[in-house]
């Protein structure tokens, strides 16, 4: 049997590149923040030197993220509508997200202040409150996708988890790069142990992310027509296969698994940069492969 489309109409993709950047920045921010709290809240002393830089990075990214979001709005001057209580939509992840995006930077700033003035006890309390905020602020973006049943590529229970782990991954990778830069300019060098821990964490999360991906593939391949179509589309998308999977996950994983890679800072740095890019490509392919699949 043959088939032809006599006519149909194209549908413009409503989002521009800002949106994956937005997801990416919130993720990075959440990731770094969690890293910062490893010492302040969870008392893992090894990460102490990272606490302040991580928190500052996390805050800076938090300014970038909403900026991207607003840039993508077609009515940017109306962004405040999201904070009008009467307009609040209790079924909309974005409605919660807007409040989280407001509350989290404020909490984050206060937290930074207290690390700065070295009030460890208050820092711990603040950190404890802000960690869930950080997790939510990123997880909600995962939910924003997962709850869209229109698009099989997004509509998965794994999506929020995948968003969170990859956020953490990108946060760690960024911190590794920052730590190396700090090492260059600071007199007291960071312990090798710190790098080793970060490396092990990255390996663990990369494996988790690969697991998520395998899980996606398998479920979509045996799911309904839409799901099947979406995985077929994804497999034809070089950015997903070569970008996100190979360059962003498999190669860094291979580097990190090399014996004594932790000591070879060049390799570690390369792996981290690849991861940082790979996680961005993951955001990108989630968003745009989702739109590639025809709905009608």
């Amino acid at each position, binding site marked *: 049997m*043959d088939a032809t489309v006599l006519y149909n*109409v194209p549908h413009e993709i409503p989002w521009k590149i800002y949106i994956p950047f937005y997801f990416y920045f919130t993720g990075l921010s959440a990731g770094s923040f969690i890293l910062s709290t490893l010492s302040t809240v969870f008392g893992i002393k090894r990460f102490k030197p990272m606490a302040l830089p991580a928190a500052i990075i996390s805050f800076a990214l938090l300014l970038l993220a909403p900026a991207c979001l607003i840039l993508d709005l077609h009515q940017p001057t109306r962004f405040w509508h999201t904070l009008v209580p009467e307009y609040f939509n209790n079924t909309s992840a974005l409605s919660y997200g807007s409040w989280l995006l407001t509350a989290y930077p404020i909490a984050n700033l206060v937290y930074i202040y207290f690390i700065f003035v070295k009030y460890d006890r208050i820092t711990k309390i603040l950190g404890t409150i802000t960690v869930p905020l950080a997790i939510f602020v990123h997880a909600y973006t995962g939910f924003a996708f997962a709850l869209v049943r229109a698009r099989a590529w997004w509509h998965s229970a794994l999506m929020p988890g995948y968003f969170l782990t990859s956020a953490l991954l990108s946060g760690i990778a960024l911190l590794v790069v920052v730590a190396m830069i700090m090492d260059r300019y600071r007199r007291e060098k960071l312990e090798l142990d710190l790098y080793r821990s970060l490396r092990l964490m990255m390996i663990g999360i990369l494996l988790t992310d690969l697991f998520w991906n395998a899980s996606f593939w398998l479920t979509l391949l045996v799911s309904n027509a839409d799901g099947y179509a979406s995985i077929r589309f994804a497999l034809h998308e070089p950015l997903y296969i070569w970008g996100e999977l190979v360059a962003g996950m498999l190669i860094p994983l291979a580097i990190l698994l090399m014996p004594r890679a932790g000591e070879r800072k060049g390799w570690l740095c390369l792996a981290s940069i690849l991861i940082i890019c790979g996680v961005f490509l993951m955001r990108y392919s989630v968003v745009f492969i989702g739109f590639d699949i025809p709905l009608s």
Partner: protein
Amino acid sequence: MTQVTRREFIRLATLMGGVSLFAGCHLFGEEQPVPKYIDGAPGVDPLETLQGVKNIYTVCALCPGNCGICCRVAEGAVVKIGGNPYHPVSGHPMLPFETPLDKAAAVGGAVCAVGGSGIQTVYDPFRPARPLKRVGPRGSGKWKAVGWDQAFSEIVNGGDLFGEGNVEGLKTIRKSGNGLQFLVGRADWGALTFVKRFLSAFPNAVMARDAGILMEEKARAAAEAVFGTGIGAVDADYGNVRFLVSFGDAPLDSGVPLVSIARRIADARVKGPYMHWVVVDPRLSTSASKSDLWVPVIPGEDVNLVLAIIKALLTDHRNELKFKDEALDKLVADRSTADYAKAAGIGPDIPVKLARRFVAEGPRAAAVPGRGILAQPNGLEVAMAILTINRMVGSVPGSGGLTARSDAYLKSAEEKLVPASVRDLKPTAFGSPTKALLLWESDPVYDNPASADAYFKDRSKVPLFAAISTGITETAALADYILPDTTYLERWDVCVSPPSVTTPGVGVRVPVIGGFESKTGRYFPILPETRPMEEVLIGLSAAVKIPGFDPKAKEGIKNAWDYYKQVFPPVIQAMKAGGFPVEVSKKGMAEFMQRGGFFTKERPTARAAVSSPYTAPELKAAPGQSAPKDSLLLLTYTLPFHRSPTSGVNSWLLEILPENRLLINTADARKLGIKQGETVTVEMPDGKTGYKCKAQVAPGIRPGVVALARGFGYRQLGASLQEIDKKSLAADKPRGAGVNAADLAGTSGPSRVRVKRG
């Protein structure tokens, strides 16, 4: 300010139209770029469409369907075109004439995609807004804006107008008694009376017609040969027919008018009583896909299928036939049904089955030829043979299977309006040498590109050529003068319905936009320097000093309204005499004009009398084509949402399909290695001329056949640069996308082409 919304644009064009040569280009103080004509939503709410808006009923002119339309007019601009509920074509069901106008406003009517896009025909930014005179050679695209008086005086007096030698003007031509041709396209009844009246002043003037009208003439001639003189063209009675065979006819793609035919067919096939339907077409048209049986005949070999059916009727059903003729027996003497069927490329059982069904349904059966047949070189004869099938089984216009026009009563009105000398002026094919050529509502060069060099550009054949035109069309681009006409929403006319419309009545076209001064009857079109065709002819006549046309004389026709004021009363009187319950009074006329015409179910359609003289077609089975082995047969077809050329460039239509693609069967495509959407070259068998387009690989066409939709590939109408008063005006490239099927297919039936990848 190059981005304007459609509404803003319309408003500006309406209010400021006068200042520009091209409605759009100068409007915004920028000469070069064409305004970004984003047809779209302004910030205001669409509620605008309900407040302070008037509904004005008139008649569409974008195809020969003459449907009733309803124009919603806000602030002097048409904002929406819908259907007229008072009209039998667009009203579902038709509102009785007595219904008050405010009740009608709540009831809409149907309108096709082309009709709905008419706004863009009217507010086309490329409409010439002033008379233009060429300054370069013909077709060079260089113009000078001139005043009407200058244009009239030059056309009438002649002289060395272009520095190319002396040209005879209309005045001398009139005196010498020879040499004026008026090429008229699809003119409606009212305009035609005027054109004829104008021509009556020129001894031996010729009314030339283009391929389209001649196609309709062929259809009429075929019907009259079979059913008797005076019957006019026939069509299927879609509301009553029980068995329909459409030969090269696509009523659900290009029905005239699509609006009512689509409804009738849908009702007949979904609601019942059921209409059995067979479509004979090498291509799976919308019609074929909705029919019971698709017969993908070999293009051009339809004649054999028709003869096979006639043979089957004469042999298997001889005693049940209502009409036989010796000539028919002779016609099908040489071959058997199966041989004929084989020559047509279809199974031997098909004609036998069709014949059986024809006989079973008798008076309620119909065999109808369409353009796919009429365009063939022996189209007239094949059409006659097809129509003969009807008569053989007892189906005549009015018996349920077929209908004919029902406007014979207008004869008396015509007698009052048109001088006897020109009343029966027969249309002639254009192309014969003349001294002066006037052209109106016709674009023969688009339909027959070869005629550009062969005729229109040739100054020895056409020394003086003036186009009364709403656009710089393929033909108008070759003219010496372009006299800018008003559009169909800016004119009066009397419009008769095509044969498929069974509810009798007459449509009235009235201007829906522009200004009107009731004291003088002067009409002000939206582009003030444009004139209705009638006023152009009045201007010319006045310059020639033709009696009766002098606007300064007391009795003379002063303007278009002055003429139509005289046209409507005799039309209403003729209707009254023809049995319509119309009111012959000022009020009656006002109502007639407000409702877009008068239609009634009360007056039964007169059953056309079928006279006994029958002219049998002279047909021989076409000899097998001796064509190169690797060639394919190219045919053309019509898309339901495209029209050539009048509204083919309307962006709402282009947007659905911006270019035509070469339809090719999947098997052929595989053989030639052509993939979906790939570029292919279609060339004439001589390999000299070729055109590139994209391929549409589909199963719905007979292998060995390729097809192109008509209505694309414009070279003019805004698609190419024009220079007016030394200012070059930008072109709108998307208007020219695709290929003009006529470049390859020619004008007579399927033609041979080669198709290559790349």
